């Protein structure tokens, strides 16, 4: 009597496989639609033209495409950071702090350790990874040993991280005139791996490939290894994990550390990109951390999903920059890209909530 039927209408949504990408695409469509409505309101006559740029700007030229990959790189990493933690039921809202602390590690090595020669960029990235990991270790320890909610400690470490980085930059690698960090040595820049020939004029470099590899690594770690099995089990049900002999504390700490390392690498990848990025000494939290939350949401907290979600958001951003040609001022452009991104994420949150609600109803069963 096993009759496998695909039916529409009300039924418990199948969380597995196909449901993920489809709902992400629907959410993106919703976001785009709302973006279009705002375009219509702000400038009805050229709305269509502007919208066309958002949709098509990212593939306008090889340079644009290269820049899409370049912009995507750091937010893929922060997105992955949030997604990885989320898979283990931790909400790492501290990716912003870990990102900038990681960036600091990279810049310190990039400026100071010129003796490393052609290994300088590698060590720089490793430093970024370690710095980010250590920064996430703090909320991890607090959660594991004192049951402090990670959201609260993450927000704290975001601010502490920002001020700490400002202070260290000022006292070590500071360029007074521009109020930012000194440029890193040439050796510290991530090799271009010929990508600059493929996408001439863009800022792309090997960092994108590194991000892709780390996504794949995260996917394997989560889904194919006993370690990932433990991390997820703890996230889903810590009592059952304890019963199965899994150390809950270790899982929480490791999940945060790995998540932080990813955000830290994100910082390293951006500031060692050789694209003229410096740490500005200003009291602003790194926005990449928060974009990461949208990326993770759009990517359904799936490592490969975040890869595509990061690309999408970068694509919209690059496309949006062309809207000036249709007479839109940069502020409006920012609003519209943000609208697209956040409404897409919002649509997904709503869907997830609904789904959770239904699953609980139908799920907790006798």
């Amino acid at each position: 009597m096993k009759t496998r039927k695909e039916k529409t209408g009300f039924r418990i949504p199948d969380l597995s496989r196909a449901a993920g990408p489809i709902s992400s695409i629907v959410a993106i469509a919703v976001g785009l639609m709302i973006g279009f409505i705002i375009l219509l309101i702000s400038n009805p006559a050229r709305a269509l033209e502007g919208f066309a740029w958002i949709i098509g700007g990212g593939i306008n030229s090889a340079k644009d495409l290269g820049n899409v990959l370049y912009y995507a790189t750091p937010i893929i990493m922060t997105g992955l950071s949030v997604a990885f933690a989320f898979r283990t039921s931790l909400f790492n809202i501290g990716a912003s702090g870990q990102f900038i602390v990681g960036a600091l590690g990279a810049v310190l090595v990039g400026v100071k350790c010129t003796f490393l020669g052609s290994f300088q960029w590698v060590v720089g990235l490793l430093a970024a990874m370690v710095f980010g990991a250590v920064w996430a270790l703090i909320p991890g320890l607090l959660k594991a040993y004192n049951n402090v909610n990670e959201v609260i400690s993450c927000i704290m470490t975001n601010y502490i991280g920002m001020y700490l980085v400002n202070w260290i930059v000022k006292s070590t690698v500071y360029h007074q005139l521009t109020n930012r960090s000194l440029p890193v040595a040439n050796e510290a820049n991530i090799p271009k791996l010929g990508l600059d020939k493929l996408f001439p004029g863009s800022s792309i470099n090997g960092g994108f490939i590194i991000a892709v590899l780390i996504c794949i690594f995260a996917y394997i770690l989560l889904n194919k290894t006993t370690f990932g099995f433990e991390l997820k089990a703890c996230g889903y049900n810590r009592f059952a994990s304890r019963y199965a002999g899994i150390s809950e504390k270790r899982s929480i700490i490791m999940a945060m550390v790995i998540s932080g390392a990813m955000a830290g690498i994100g910082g390293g990848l951006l500031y060692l990109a050789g694209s003229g990025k410096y740490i500005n000494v200003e009291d602003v939290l790194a926005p990449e951390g928060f974009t990461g939350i949208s990326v993770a949401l759009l990517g359904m907290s799936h490592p490969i999903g975040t890869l595509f979600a990061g690309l999408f958001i970068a694509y919209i951003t690059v496309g949006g920059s062309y809207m000036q040609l249709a007479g839109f001022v940069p502020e409006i452009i920012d609003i519209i890209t943000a609208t697209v991104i956040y409404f897409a994420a919002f649509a997904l949150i709503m869907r997830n909530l609904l789904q959770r609600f239904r699953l609980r109803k139908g799920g907790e069963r006798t």
Partner: protein
Amino acid sequence: MEYIIEMRDIVKDFPGIRANDHVTLQVRKGEIHALLGENGAGKSTLMSILFGMYKPDSGSILLRGKEVHISGPRMANELGIGMVHQHFMLVHNFTVLQNIILGVETTQNGFLKMDEARKKVVALSEKYGLKVDPDALISEITVGMQQRVEILKMLYRENDILIFDEPTAVLTPQEIDELMDIMKGLAAEGKSIIFITHKLEEIKRVADRCTVLRMGKCIGTVNVADVTVEELSEMMVGRKVILKVEKQEKEPGRPVLEVRNLTIRDHKSKSRKNKVHNLSLTVREGEIVCIAGVDGNGQSELVQAITGLIPADEGQIILKGEDVTKKSIRYRNTHGLSHIPEDRHKYGLVLDYNLAENLVLMEYFEPRFQSRGFLKQKEITAYAEKLISQFDIRSSEGARTRVRSMSGGNQQKAIAAREISRNPDLLLAVQPTRGLDVGAIEYMHGQIVKARDSGKAVLVVSFELSEVMNLADRILVMYEGEIVANVKPSEVTEKELGLYMAGSKRSEAV
């Protein structure tokens, strides 16, 4: 209008399975109507449809002769339908009173009219003998009382069609008696009751009619007075079921588990009474020891101390001659201990993992399921499929099914299959057959006896006297954290056991 509820020709598909296949259920006003069927037969699904939680794919529901479309639990409530789910739906950090009025609060100028609500609740609880403390937090009261809260919730909403989904699975025999009386009282008042249970004698005791489901199909409806328990179980499983456990006498071997002078203090409430007090016991090879007792007399704490989930305050736990009192849970799990926990949702399963993942939850790190840290997906699936067919675990998509979507009895089967198949030296089973149908109980008891016959030690905690009497080679009765009796089932009657359990008798041989 003969029937108060008629569910006609209900069909409900889930991906991979048809849970209800043209089921018809007709309930008369004022009757207790039992719903019987194997694990996964579709009982809970059918009731969830009546309660508005699922929409049927086809079929119709008639309420007092008029067709209705129930869009959700809220509407079901407005139509007078209430449901007690087996896994209760209470808010744990709310009080009893708050839970009862949740969703139907009466307000005045935006303020809750608590006093009125309290009066009504107290009146109801007195009228029906549903003892509750309105100000206690849900997290701090027993399962039995939580259930009374669920019942009061229905009565408070003045529902007159009451659905009970396996209410007795979580209750002690005393509480079951009380519940049966309450149900009879409610029916006598004209309320109509649908009652799901796997215990046939309960059906005989209270139900007027009984509808039997098998594999999603309706087998028929009978007058309970016209059939025997045996006939009912045959209707349900499709074959004769032997409820008596067959086992040979066996001389126990060396001790496998020794608990010496174990004391566990009550760390929560500062009462001086210990949860477990200076308790010693031994379980030997080839022996089934059953711990009987009323829930809450320290059984849970004893079991959790043996498994390492809570530390022992004093005393020792010795497994196969080795002191494991200070050892980790993983150490005990890998050194011969296997455990069917009391709370299957809290401890036993990761509900969002699939069946295969849950079946290897205790062994995923063993070389046969992993190499160099990588899971051997193929071996895991193959092993899962073996257990699924061996223990007849029914689900919609086999090894890939998310455990959350499985029926309660099949979830229990999955845990039991996992723990028994690990081939432990000591099998520690708490309520191993809770929520199982008679066929599955027969099989599970058979497996436990088989383990014992192959020289394993088995320690069972059960609140059900019939299970204890049937299964045990030796019975220990626990009362207020101590063992008050140590007897052979052949030397004791159920009545005597009851006396021990109530603390009014103590045997010398302890």
